[in-house]
């Protein structure tokens, strides 16, 4: 499980940055480290001078301060605040960027369960405790958990996202460095938490294609793509009976993904994975329709719901099913 070290110091291999985002995070960390070292040096030297000069019994003069206390207090309060606000801004901008996937990012479903990672690719390939990525291609992971909370953590990407049972969560990234990077479960999940680790492999395009062919051949016959599975589940649960088109009991789902849905209480919701997952399992009240959708919570598993979401997403441009 060794990452390709970019530097080794005293037996410690330094951490690779495998995306643009990771480099930006490192920049902020470097700024924070620099500021911290400066503050610690300043306070350390100042305190040492004071300790020596004003030790009990020293002959240093101790006249009362001439400057008003409130001026000093105000100065260092505002100074501290200004530095803090700068870092707040840097961190918040990067965080918000990391929450907005670019359009057209490839979707990969990752399910966590005690104690493994279950990865499913759009072409139906499935693998465990591994994730293969194509260099310089943005991907969006749709994460679900089948039992307890897990957390998908790839230090080389400086990214981490919890997997919450009963919910879909997402993360995206754009790897710009080939290599094999560690994947950890960062949220304590029981006995084998420390063994819930895997590898993220970023391959150059031609290598990725080769891998895809061989891996697809291995598992393709057994597994269906999430979209195809979603289509099967859609039929199995009879979704089309109500979501089949005009004048049906429920809203049509073609072209729904990514649009804003008007709810019966007058508010709007964005039809993203989280919304659809919620709607599938618990139903949502959409304006213009009676709230007749039964609940599928406990009937449809989270990973199945993720596949149905993928299918609905694929219907973005398709006609009525």
């Amino acid at each position, binding site marked *: 499980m060794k990452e390709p070290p970019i530097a080794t110091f005293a037996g410690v291999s330094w951490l690779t940055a495998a995306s643009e985002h990771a480099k930006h995070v490192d920049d902020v960390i470097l700024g924070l480290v620099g500021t*911290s070292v400066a503050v610690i040096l300043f306070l350390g030297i100042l305190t040492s001078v*004071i300790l020596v000069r*004003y030790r009990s019994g020293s002959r240093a003069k101790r006249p*009362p301060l001439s400057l008003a206390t409130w001026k000093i207090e105000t100065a260092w309060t505002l100074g501290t605040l200004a530095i803090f606000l700068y870092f707040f801004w840097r961190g918040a901008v990067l965080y918000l960027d990391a929450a907005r996937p670019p359009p057209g990012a490839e979707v990969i479903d990752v399910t966590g369960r005690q104690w493994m990672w279950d990865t499913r690719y759009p072409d139906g390939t499935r693998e465990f405790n591994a994730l293969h990525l194509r260099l310089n291609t943005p991907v969006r992971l749709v994460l679900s958990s089948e039992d307890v909370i897990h957390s998908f953590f790839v230090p080389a990407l400086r990214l981490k996202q*919890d997997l*919450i049972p009963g919910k879909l969560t997402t993360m995206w990234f754009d790897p710009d460095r080939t290599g094999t990077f560690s994947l950890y479960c*960062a949220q*304590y999940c029981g006995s084998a938490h*420390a063994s819930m680790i895997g590898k993220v492999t970023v391959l150059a395009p031609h290598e990725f294609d080769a891998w895809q062919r061989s891996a697809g051949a291995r598992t393709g016959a057994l597994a269906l793509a999430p979209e195809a599975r979603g289509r099967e589940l859609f039929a199995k649960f009879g979704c089309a009976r109500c979501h089949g088109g005009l004048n049906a009991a429920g809203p049509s789902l073609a072209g729904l993904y990514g649009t804003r849905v008007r709810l019966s209480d007058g508010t709007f919701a964005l039809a993203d994975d989280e919304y659809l997952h919620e709607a599938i399992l618990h139903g949502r009240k959409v304006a213009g329709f009676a709230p007749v959708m039964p609940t599928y919570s406990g009937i449809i598993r989270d990973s199945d719901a993720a596949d149905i979401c993928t299918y609905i997403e694929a219907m973005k441009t398709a006609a009525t099913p």
Partner: protein
Amino acid sequence: MIASEQGDGPSYLQESTVRSWLGTLDHKRIGILYLFTITFFFAIGASAAAMMRIQLAYPAAGLVTSDAYNRLFTLHGVIMVWFFLIPSIPAVLGNFVLPLAIGARDVAFPRLNLASWYLFVGGGALALYSILVGGVDTGWTFYTPYSSTYSNGHVMAMAGGIFVAGFGSIATGINFIVTVHKLRAPGLTWFRLPLFVWSIYATSIILVLATPVLAITLTLMALERVAGVGIFDPRIGGDPLLFQHLFWFYSHPAVYIMILPGMGVISELVACFSKKAVFGYHAMAFSILSIAGLGFLVWGHHMFVTSQSVYAGVAFSFLSFLVAVPSAIKVFNWVATMHRGAIEFTTPFLYALGFIALFTIGGLTGIFLATLAVDVHLHDTFFVIAHFHYIMVGGGVMAYMGGIHYWWPKISGRMYPEAWGRVAAVTIFVGFNLTFFPQYILGYLGMPRRYWIYPEQFHTLNLVSSAGALVLAIGYILPLIYLPWSFFKGARAGTNPWGATGLEWLAASPPAEHNFRETPVVTRPAYDYPPL
């Protein structure tokens, strides 16, 4: 001030029957009862930590199994947080010093005070029972659905113990709030209060307002475990994140329960051993209150990667930066207090210096974690472990040790051996940094928390950390030897061996049963040291 001299009556330590101790209503004796109990719990929690550090010295050391390791870190967290850190300064030094420092004869409700201790011991007994019958493997955070559905540990007994001890904390908080409001000596106005009293007061408010939320949260989790279904259960539409919101609504303010009293103690130490009033007294008092207030609004920074709304994340990040400002101001004020003072390098002062250094590092690394995108990387890694140990151990425990040494002459009537005191203080400082500084780097490199085995590349730093823990252990054992020794053999301390201000130094050492023969009358501000 009217000085009441020695000869107020027999010392509070006079009566020595077990019955007189277990049935005492004297705030000083109750403080001593807490001192013994939390030292006992500290020993248990520290032993667990020692075993964890031995296990982590090598990538797959094989001292314990994964299940045993999971029980060790849960035990360490639960015992250290609820049965050592939270009661440490408030219940030991708060009980002993607070009434003395405000010129009162006791706390407002002495019976309730004793009841608090019994609740604490009862809760501790339940927690110990859960450890003895097999332990708990959920981590001190009890995240659902792991704790409610999947864990096979004795979660109920452990949660019950915390629940019971929590009511002890609430009772202590109520007692201190009322005591500070209603029992201050004549002339002791709010802005003449020593900062230690301010900090205990602010802490008590947090205890009273935050602890009940923990109680209800653990109750909900326990009910879910009993019934097999409950309001955090995702199968019926429940949200595990709601548990986290409720848990951190208590547990983030709880961090301030652990550090605010420490800030109060350090203010006393720095002023006394610089023989100078605390710089910016009003700013210090208000920063204590603003930390206590803002501390209630930042819990969401524990949840940046949980899929809570990113905009909530931005708001919580902003508030977390705000709460760091008063903490920074306090550090500047302590340094400014030393400026142009007459500094004496006694053991308590060494602890104060250690506190300022470690708290500064802990605070600065807290800024890393408040920075959203950086926290996404560092969350749930060893960086977080290092950060909160710098605050709670480097801050809280250093202040507690400093306070124990500072008030030891008042507590015992004897002086501790100064040379040994300094050796221990320096050993703890060195050992602490050696143990926890490498963990910052480990965290940045990506080592996740709660791993009983880890990949080879993290070995070197873990080994350094484990070696540091050995030094730290020696540092903690020393006072356990020389303090009891000095209780019997130490030189007698006068009423005021440090030449400190503060009403507690007017009472005899050790004080008589009801502290003061005549209630002192205060006419001057706190820290009224003569000009140098």
